[in-house]
């Protein structure tokens, strides 16, 4: 019998909120994080908006070192929030999971990309070698999961960073689910993190994918993404473990699916996306008709939104469930995107609320979805599908459900 895996803690660091409660409020309000870029010089770019985390003070959240890269600090801060939220370190000591076997898995697109920018700057400025060396240590993507394990004092956790770009957060949740199902670990701290950087912005700008004003998923006049940053972290454990320690359960992780199309570096493949969704639903033991809503990848680019919509119609038929594009509010937080969206899914299940697709004027007829435009709706949410679609066809879809005692069966 495969173990039932549940979410018992969540940590959020992003442009619209810090922490789960603030995040839930921001989602209800349909708050957006877009603003002028402050983290690097945007001279020469025709537009300069992103969804930055402003006023981030690592020392407010971290007990251990704050000498971390920006993305690693986001990951560690959100992880500290998540274990606190799970009631693991309420006593203030290093926590009862310190000597248990666990997994830390963080998804990312750029790892220490922000520090890589700084290294280039240091090189141009002819900075002393020790300055460059200090930055170089913060660049590898592995620093993200290691920073989390160190901050939480998890000496027996396997620390893994998954660099599968914009779907990486879902990969991380899936890895944690597998590790718990197989009985390899007793807990998993999973999520994703990234920082806004000039390098990343320039890449998307070069591809013509940066929106000049707002990110408008599924809108007929959508013009692209706004890059964003932050971290989302979920604490996973078995339902049995949660019950034993009397932990609050947000939701169950029902299953996930992965697909690597490798068809084209940039263009998404409709069949590959559909295959990935079907794989996830099958793993979750859920019929398409049971899905109450979909958190879309919904980047707000012309290609993604049409291709994703077509694939959703392929899987769900003529009347697919409501499909929300969260990136209008949060921006595209890269490796953090699906982790933050996963937290949204869990909050939807807890609160009976589907957040809106903001900045919406007219739905693209080629998308033909109910994207819950501009105003969230109350609904009995029991099963949510979370899409993550990355370049290269590196797709990952996770399905969440209400806690087993509440979900029932259709």
């Amino acid at each position, binding site marked *: 019998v495969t173990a039932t895996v549940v979410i018992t803690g969540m940590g959020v660091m992003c442009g619209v909120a810090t922490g789960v409660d603030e995040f839930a409020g921001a989602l209800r309000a349909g708050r957006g994080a877009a603003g002028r870029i402050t983290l690097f010089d945007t001279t020469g770019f025709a537009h300069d908006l992103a969804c930055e985390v402003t006023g981030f003070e690592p020392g407010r959240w971290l007990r251990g070192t704050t000498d971390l890269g920006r993305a690693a600090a986001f990951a560690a801060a959100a992880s500290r929030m998540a274990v606190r939220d799970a009631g693991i370190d309420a006593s203030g000591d290093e926590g009862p999971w310190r000597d248990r076997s666990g997994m830390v898995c963080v998804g990312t697109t750029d790892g220490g990309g922000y520090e890589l920018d700084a290294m280039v700057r240091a090189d141009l400025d002819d900075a002393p070698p020790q300055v460059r060396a200090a930055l170089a240590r913060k660049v590898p993507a592995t620093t993200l999961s290691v920073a989390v394990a160190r901050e939480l004092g998890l000496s027996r956790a396997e620390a893994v960073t998954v660099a599968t770009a914009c779907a990486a957060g879902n990969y991380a949740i899936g890895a944690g689910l597998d590790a718990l199902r197989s009985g390899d670990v007793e807990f998993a701290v999973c999520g994703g993190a990234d920082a806004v950087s000039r390098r990343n912005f320039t890449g998307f700008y070069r591809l*013509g994918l940066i929106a000049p004003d707002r990110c408008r998923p599924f809108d007929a006049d959508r013009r692209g993404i706004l890059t964003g940053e932050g971290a989302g972290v979920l604490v996973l454990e078995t339902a049995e473990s949660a019950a034993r320690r009397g932990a609050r359960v947000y939701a169950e992780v029902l299953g996930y699916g992965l697909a690597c199309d490798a068809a084209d570096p940039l*263009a998404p493949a409709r069949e590959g996306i559909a295959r990935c969704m079907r794989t996830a639903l099958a793993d979750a033991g859920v019929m398409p008709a049971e899905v109450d809503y979909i958190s879309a990848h919904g980047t707000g680019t012309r290609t993604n939104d049409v291709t994703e919509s077509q694939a959703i119609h392929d899987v769900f038929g003529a009347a697919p469930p409501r499909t929300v594009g969260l990136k209008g509010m949060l921006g595209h937080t890269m490796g953090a995107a699906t982790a933050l969206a996963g937290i949204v899914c869990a909050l939807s299940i807890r609160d009976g609320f589907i957040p809106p697709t903001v900045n919406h004027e007219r739905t693209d007829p080629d998308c033909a979805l109910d994207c819950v435009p501009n105003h969230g709706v109350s609904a009995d949410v029991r099963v949510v599908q979370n899409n993550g679609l990355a370049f290269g066809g590196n797709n990952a879809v996770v399905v969440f459900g209400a806690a087993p005692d509440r979900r029932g069966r259709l």
Partner: protein
Amino acid sequence: VSMTSSRDRIRDIVLERTEVDDDVLDETSLFYEDYGLNSIVVVEIQAAIEMEYEVEIGKEQSLRMVNLAGVRAVFGEVTGIAGRTGHVNA
């Protein structure tokens, strides 16, 4: 000494970025369907033209760069240099 026209330079850029053989690249065969290229190549062609000629190619224009003729047409639009008829093979 030969004077290379912009028309030849566009062909050179496409040859360099696509790595398609000179005797295989024609005006109308499609980058994706006929040569099996991927979308990054078009981005590279766009970037090379933008940097060399100090012009900007819009997203909608780049979507029309599906073959050499398409690249020439967009090049003509952004530079005002005729793509088809300005051919000088000196």
